[in-house]
C-alpha cells in the first residue's frame, strides 16, 4: 500500500499521515474519540442526575478540597502541553527531544494519578465508600474511569517510549506517537469538564 519512501528528501512534514496505514490510524482514532465523547457524556449525565442523592452520607461540599484539585489540574494541563511540544519535535525529526518530552508527559501523568489515588483514599477515610450512596458510586465511577484512562495512557506511552527508544522517527512509529498524544489531550479535555462540573460545581454549592 505504501510505495517506496524517498529517504534522500528526509522525513515528511506530516510523518503521521505519510502512509495509508498512518492515515487510517489517524482517522480511526478520531472516530473512537467521537464515541468516547458520548460514553463520557453518559457517565457525566449519571453523575449530574444523581449528585444530590447522598443518602445521608458525606456531601461534595464537605469532602472536596480545592487546592488538591488545582494541583492535579495544573499537572494534567502541563502534561498536555509537553505532549504537544513532543509532536512538534517529531515533525522536525528530533527524536531525542520528542522522547524527553514524552517522558515528562508520563511523569506528570503519574504524579496526577498518585494524587488521585491519595484523594480517593482520603475520601474513604472520611466515610465515602463506594456503596455509601448514589452520589458516591457515580462520583467514583466517573472520576475512576477517567483515572483508568490515565493509567492506560501511561502504560501505552511508556511502552512506545521503551520500544522506540533507539529507533529514530520512522513512518511506522510516527502515527503511533501521534495517536497516543491525541489520546492524552482527550483525557485532558475530559478532566477540564470533571474539575468544572464535579469539583467546582460541587463546592460552589449549586
Amino acid at each position, binding site marked *: 500500500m505504501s510505495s*517506496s*519512501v524517498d529517504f534522500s528528501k528526509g522525513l515528511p512534514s506530516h510523518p503521521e*499521515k505519510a502512509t495509508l496505514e498512518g492515515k487510517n490510524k489517524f482517522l480511526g482514532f478520531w472516530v473512537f474519540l*467521537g464515541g468516547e465523547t458520548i460514553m463520557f457524556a453518559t457517565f457525566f449525565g449519571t453523575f449530574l442526575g444523581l449528585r444530590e442523592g447522598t443518602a445521608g452520607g458525606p456531601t461534595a461540599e464537605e469532602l472536596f478540597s480545592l487546592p488538591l484539585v488545582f494541583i492535579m*489540574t495544573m499537572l494534567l494541563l502541563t502534561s498536555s502541553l509537553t505532549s504537544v511540544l513532543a509532536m512538534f519535535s517529531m515533525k*522536525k525529526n528530533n*527524536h531525542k527531544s520528542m522522547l524527553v518530552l514524552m517522558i515528562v508527559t508520563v511523569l506528570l501523568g503519574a504524579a496526577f494519578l498518585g494524587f488521585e489515588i491519595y484523594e480517593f483514599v482520603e475520601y474513604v477515610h472520611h466515610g465515602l465508600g463506594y456503596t455509601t450512596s448514589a452520589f458516591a458510586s457515580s462520583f467514583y465511577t466517573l472520576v475512576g474511569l477517567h483515572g483508568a484512562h490515565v493509567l492506560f495512557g501511561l502504560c501505552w506511552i511508556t511502552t512506545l517510549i521503551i520500544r522506540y527508544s533507539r529507533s529514530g522517527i520512522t513512518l511506522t512509529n510516527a502515527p503511533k506517537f501521534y495517536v497516543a498524544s491525541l489520546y492524552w489531550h482527550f483525557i485532558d*479535555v475530559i478532566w*477540564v469538564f470533571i474539575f468544572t462540573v464535579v469539583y467546582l460545581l460541587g463546592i*460552589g454549592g449549586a
Partner: protein
Amino acid sequence: MADDLSKPFPKSSMSEEEIMKINKERRIQVTSFAFMIFLTILAFVAVATEMIEVGFAIPFILLLAVIQFFLQMYYFMHLKDKDHGWPNAFIISGVVLSTPALIALILLLGVTKY
C-alpha cells in the same frame, strides 16, 4: 519496501519556510496553553473566593470549560488544520448527540415532570 517503514530518516524534509511556520505555530500553542492556565485559575478563583454570586458563577465556569474544550480540540489536537474534515464531523456529532442524552439524564428522571 516494508523495511523502509522501520528506518529512521537522516534529516527532516522541511524547508526553512516550513520550519518558520511550525515555530510560529508552536508559539501559538504555548500562548494558548498560558491562556488555558489563566482560564483555569479564573474558574477556581471564582468558586474559591465566592466573590461572584452562585447563580452567576455556574454559567461562568461552564463557559470557561467550553472555551478550554475548544482550545484543546482546535489547537492542541489540530482540529482547525486542514484535512481534519472527518475528525471534525465525528467530534461535532459526538457533542451534538451527547446533548439530548445529558439533558435527559439530568432533568428527565421523573422527579420533576416536564
